[in-house]
């Protein structure tokens, strides 16, 4: 069965330290990979996506993500965390090409950045 796993419900990081939010997937073929962020009381916002090419993808707000095909992972990273990065982060993966553009979503990881 196709699935996306975000193994950590919550990640705590001190401000200024690097952060990583993990995502692994089990989807056939060569899926597209996405990260979204949800700030408190707001809708989801697109952060970045991987389609093909360079395994390191850069996105909004200084975030980047590393695609690893052999480990079927797409971890979100930032070199220096800000308190304002505290939010709920979702990883999403495209289903098969015949699925009319639907995504499979992870359960979300709450990121808490402490001053």
């Amino acid at each position: 069965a196709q699935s996306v796993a975000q193994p950590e419900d919550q990640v705590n990081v001190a401000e200024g330290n690097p952060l990583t939010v993990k995502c692994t997937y089990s989807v056939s073929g060569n899926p597209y990979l996405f990260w979204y962020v949800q700030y408190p009381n707001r809708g989801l916002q697109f952060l970045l996506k991987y389609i093909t090419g360079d395994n390191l993808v850069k996105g909004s707000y200084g975030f980047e993500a590393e695609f690893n095909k052999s480990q079927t992972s797409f971890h979100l990273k930032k070199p220096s965390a800000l308190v304002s990065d505290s939010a709920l982060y979702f990883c999403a993966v495209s289903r098969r090409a015949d699925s009319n553009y639907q995504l499979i979503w992870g359960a979300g990881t709450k990121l808490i950045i402490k001053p």
Partner: protein
Amino acid sequence: DVKVTQSSRYLVKRTGEKVFLECVQDMDHENMFWYRQDPGLGLRLIYFSYDVKMKEKGDIPEGYSVSREKKERFSLILESASTNQTSMYLCASSFRSSGLFYEQYFGPGTRLTVT
């Protein structure tokens, strides 16, 4: 900027009532989606529409129906609201192109409480 608006931020309804949630996008997107978001479960797709009057069931369509009479508007209908439909409902839209997955743009969400 893409804008996706939802008719209500908060809604309280009684069991058995018929509930309408409206979503409007202003970017001429072909695809529109309705999700529900519950803690620890991520986003689950209720229905998807890829064109006017076209719809596909998502992962959890039971108890819901949808309507898309105009390209910019996608409505979610709870035929007879039940307490287990208390949730956050998110609408999203995206471009559609053969074989490509474009990012989805989300509305702010409607928090529905059924009592």
